[in-house]
C-alpha cells in the first residue's frame, strides 16, 4: 500500500480535493501500463470517481493491483446488469485513504456467464457475488460459498434478467 495520510488525521475539503485529483490522474496514467490491452477504457468521470472497462479475464488481476498498490480497500458494490446482448458486472471499489471510488465495468457474454471471483481479495464481495448469481445467473469461479442467497435454493429462474417478465397486474 502506498504511503498516504492516515485516515484518522483531520483533513480539510480543499486539501482533499487536491489530493484526490492527483491520485485519480496518477491512476489514469499508470493503470493501462499495468493491465495492458485488457483495460479497454479508463477515464475520470468526476471528482473522486473513475470509470474503467476491463475484459473479464483481467478483472482479478486489476482488482489485485488496485487493492495492493493503490489502497482500494473497500468493495462497495457489485451490480449485475442485463444489457440484453450481454451481461455487465459493475464493481464499485472505494479507496478509503484516497477518498476515491472506481467503477469497473466487466462485459460478460450471455452464453458463458462466468467471471473470476474477487471474494478472496475482499471478504465483503462474498454476498454481493452470491446475489449477482442469484438474480442474474452469473457464475463466479473460485467463490467459497456459491449458492443462492435471497431466493430458495431450488428456484429455477434468474429474476432480474430482462427476459424474466413480471406478472402484469
Amino acid at each position, binding site marked *: 500500500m502506498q504511503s498516504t495520510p492516515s*485516515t484518522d488525521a483531520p483533513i480539510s*475539503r480543499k486539501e482533499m480535493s487536491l489530493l484526490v485529483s492527483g491520485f485519480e490522474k496518477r491512476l489514469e496514467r499508470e493503470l493501462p501500463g499495468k493491465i495492458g490491452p485488457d483495460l479497454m477504457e479508463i477515464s475520470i468521470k468526476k471528482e473522486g470517481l473513475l470509470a474503467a472497462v476491463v475484459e473479464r479475464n483481467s478483472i482479478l488481476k486489476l482488482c489485485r493491483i488496485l487493492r495492493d498498490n493503490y489502497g482500494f480497500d473497500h468493495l462497495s458494490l457489485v*451490480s449485475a446488469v442485463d444489457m440484453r446482448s450481454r451481461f455487465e458486472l459493475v464493481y464499485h471499489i472505494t479507496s478509503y485513504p484516497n477518498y476515491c*471510488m472506481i467503477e469497473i465495468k466487466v462485459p460478460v457474454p450471455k452464453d458463458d456467464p462466468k467471471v473470476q471471483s474477487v471474494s478472496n481479495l475482499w471478504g465483503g464481495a462474498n*454476498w454481493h457475488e452470491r446475489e449477482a448469481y442469484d438474480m442474474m445467473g452469473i457464475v463466479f469461479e473460485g467463490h467459497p460459498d456459491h449458492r443462492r*442467497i435471497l431466493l430458495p435454493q431450488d428456484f429455477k429462474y434468474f*429474476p432480474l434478467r430482462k427476459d424474466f417478465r413480471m406478472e402484469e397486474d
Partner: protein
Amino acid sequence: MAEMWINMGPQHPMTHGLWNLRVKVDGEVIVDAMPEIGYLHRGMEKIFENKTYTQIGPITDRLCYGSSFTWNHLYCMTVENLMDLEIPERAKYIRVAAIEIQRIASHLMWIAAFAADLGLLTGFLWAMRDREIFIDLLQALSGSRLTYNYARIGGVTADFPPDFERDCIRAVDYFEKKMPEHESLYDSSKIFHMRTRGIGVLSREDAINLGVTGPTLRASNAKLDVRKDRPYEVYDEIDFEVQCHTDCDCWGRYRVRMNEMRESCKIIRQAIAKMPKGPVRVKTPLIGPARDAIGVVEDPRGEGIMYVIGDGTDRPYRLKVRSPLFVILSAAKPMLLGYKVADVVAIMGSIDVCMGETDK
C-alpha cells in the same frame, strides 16, 4: 454436550425481523455460524425496473422501516445525479435536518432493541419514549410516521410547517438533556459492561476487508464516514465530528451510536441556523437520460449506495441497491466465532439489523 446446530430464526426473538442465523455450538461456545437471509425478499430491484422514476419514490421508503427517509433521500439524490439536477440550497438543508432527525430516531430504535435483547426493558421503553419526539417531528414534516416519502426528485415535498424550526430546537434541547439519563443506564451498569466489553471483536483490518461500514466500522477504530469523506448535500458546510471508538466490540458500537446522536443534534442545530430562504423544489424532467449514476450516503446503518442506469425512458433500466446490513450480516461469522450462545444476541443486536433493506 456434543456439537449441535441451533436455528435462531426465522421466528426467534433475537432476529429483529425475518432471518435465520444457524449457529453450531459446542456446549455453549459457538464454533460455526451461518446466516441465511431472503425471508423478506420482495423483489424491489425488479419492481424498480417496471415503475416510472416518480412511482419509485414511495417504494424506496419501504426499504427500511427504521430509517426510511435516508433511503428515500438516497433514491432522489441518485436520480438527481443521473439527471444532472441542481436542487435549491434550502432543500439541501431541509434534507440534512430531516436525515439527522431520522438518524436519531433510528439510533434510538437501535438502543431500544439492544437493551431489550440484553434483558433491560427499561432502556427499551426510555428510548422508545424519546424516539417518539423525533417521529413527531418527521410527522409534522411529512404527515406520516413511518414511511415519509418526503424527499422528491428535485427537492422535498413541502417547506417546513410553521414553527417547525422552534419545535426542532426544542426537541433537540430536550433530547440533549435526556442523553445523560440514557447513558447512565448503560455506562454505570456493571452487567452492561460485562455483556458488551470484548464481545464481538472485529479488528479494523477485518472490518474494512469484509466491507463493514457505518457505526460498526467506526467502532472498529476507523474514522470513516461518507458524510465527511465524500460529502453530499451540504455536509461539507456543517461542522461535526466523526465518532469512532478504539474498542472494536459491542461496547464501542454502543458508544459510537450514542455519540453520533449528540453529533446529529449539533448538525440539526446548524442546519436550522444556516438554512437560507427560497424555493424547496425544482421542476424535474420525467425522462432519465441514457447513462448511469451513483449516489452514496451514510445511512444510520452504514454506507448506502444506489446505482442507477437510465435508458432514455421514464423508467430506470436498472436500479441496484447496496444495503449496508447486507454486507455486515455476511461478517456475522467472524464476529461470532468463539463466543457464547448468550453473546449472539449482544453481537447481532449491536449491528442494528434491519431486514427490509437487507433482503430488498
